[in-house]
Each structure stands twice: as C-alpha cells, then as structure tokens.
C-alpha cells in the first residue's frame, strides 16, 4: 500500500505539470482529469475512501464535464492553439515560475525538518464522516446549500442567452 501512495503522487505531479504546459485546452483537461484520479487514489491510501469516491464522482466527473462542455461550446481550433503558443513566451513565465520554486523549496525544507510520525493506519469511513458532517458541522452544510443556490442563480443569470439590447 505504501508504494501505491508514491506512485499515485508521482502520477499526480507529472500529470499536473503536463497540464500546465499544454497549449490545447482539451489536452490540458485530459491531463487534469488524470491528475484528479491520481489524487483520488492518494486519498484512498490515506484511509479516506469516502472522499476518494467523491473526488472521482464530483471533481473528475461533474466539474471536469462542465469544463469539457464549455471548451466544446467555445469551439476553439488550431488558431487558438497558435495564439496560445504566442502568449507563452519564456520571458513571461520564467519569473513567476522561479518565485514559486523558491516558495516550494521553503515548504519542502520546513516539512523535511518536521516530525516524522507515520499515519494513515486507520480508515475513517463514511459513517464517521457523516456523523461529523451532520453533527457539529451542520451549520456548514446549511451554508454550503446557500452557496450552491447562489452559484446556481449566478450561473443561470450569466449563462442565459443574450438578448439584443438596442
């Protein structure tokens, strides 16, 4: 099981990196889906099977399907790919990348000098999650429902067909 975690982590990192370097939006989306599936496997190895299922169903399923639909509706062609290549000149991405690498190097330094206790020996199943979710976190569930309602209304309002104003 230990090796599963490391293989899935490597797949997630490589897939995310490839997603960032793609020029074609559909290719990037496919790599992102692979990355999310790998993270789901990581969740499973960490002893969180319920969240692993949610990751696949909602993230890799619902949210990514939304992205795919939007890319299809935009109908981007080869011209968009060429334009993307034009936008990604090295002078534009070297600076932010170097700064982000410095930040992650600091995080790695801090974490490799932290405690090395092992974890993940026990499984936290759906039962415990539900007990917690609908017990002490009930107010959060209510707020999440209001957030979803706001998202629904906002997406409907923004996405409706434009009428000619004049």
């Amino acid at each position, binding site marked *: 099981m230990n090796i599963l975690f490391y293989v899935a982590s490597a797949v997630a990192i490589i897939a995310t990196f490839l997603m960032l370097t793609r020029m074609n*939006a559909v290719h990037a989306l496919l790599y992102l889906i692979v990355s999310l599936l790998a993270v789901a496997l990581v969740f499973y190895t960490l002893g969180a099977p319920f969240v692993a299922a949610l990751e696949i169903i909602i993230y890799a399923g619902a*949210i990514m399907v939304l992205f795919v639909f939007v890319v299809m509706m935009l109908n981007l062609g080869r011209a968009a790919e060429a334009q993307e290549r034009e936008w990604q000149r090295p002078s534009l991405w070297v600076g932010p990348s170097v700064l982000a690498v410095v930040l992650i190097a600091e995080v790695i330094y801090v974490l490799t000098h932290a405690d090395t206790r092992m974890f*993940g020996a026990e499984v936290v199943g759906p039962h415990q*999650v539900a007990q917690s*979710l609908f017990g002490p976190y009930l107010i959060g569930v209510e707020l*999440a429902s209001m957030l979803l309602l706001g998202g*629904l209304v*906002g*997406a409907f309002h923004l996405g409706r067909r434009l009428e000619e104003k004049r």
Partner: protein
Amino acid sequence: MATVPMMHALLLAGILFALGLVGLLTRRNILFILMSLEVMLNAAGLAFVAAGARWGQADGQVVFIFILTMAAAEVAVGLALVLRMYHRTKTLDADRASEMKG
C-alpha cells in the same frame, strides 16, 4: 492501509499547490487560469484530508466536502462568465477583460 509519513502527503499537497500557482500566474488564457484554480483548491483539500488522517478524525474529510462544494459553485459561475466574455470579446485573453463597463 498505508503508513505514510505525514510530511510526504503535505509535500504532495504543497507541490500541487505550487504548480497551480505557477499556472495561475503565467497563463493568459482564462480557461487555463480556472483549471489552475481547481488544482490549487484540490491541493488545499488534500492537505486537509492528510491532516485529518494523521489524527484519525473525520474533520479533514468534512472540510474537503465543503471545499468540493465551493469549487463546484465557483466553477459554474466562472465558466458562465467565460462564456459571456467570449461572446463579448471573441477571445479568451484575460487581459482583454480589463475594461468593465455595463
């Protein structure tokens, strides 16, 4: 189940978050910016789940479910805005959305 050091899971979350941050900073296409945001949110959720697993508590997973909800709402509104912007400007260039007028 696997016994993985806490820091390795947090390292994975940190690396994924940094990758998302790089994408957010460097891409100009607004679709890629949204995708990078998804990666960052996912990495934050991974950190929560890892911390929850460290102490064998369900709280990390509960917070991940909230993050999932938030990501879904954010992506629905964000993609509707992308469609609206594409109809208006015929481009996905985030820089072209600099003037906001009625």
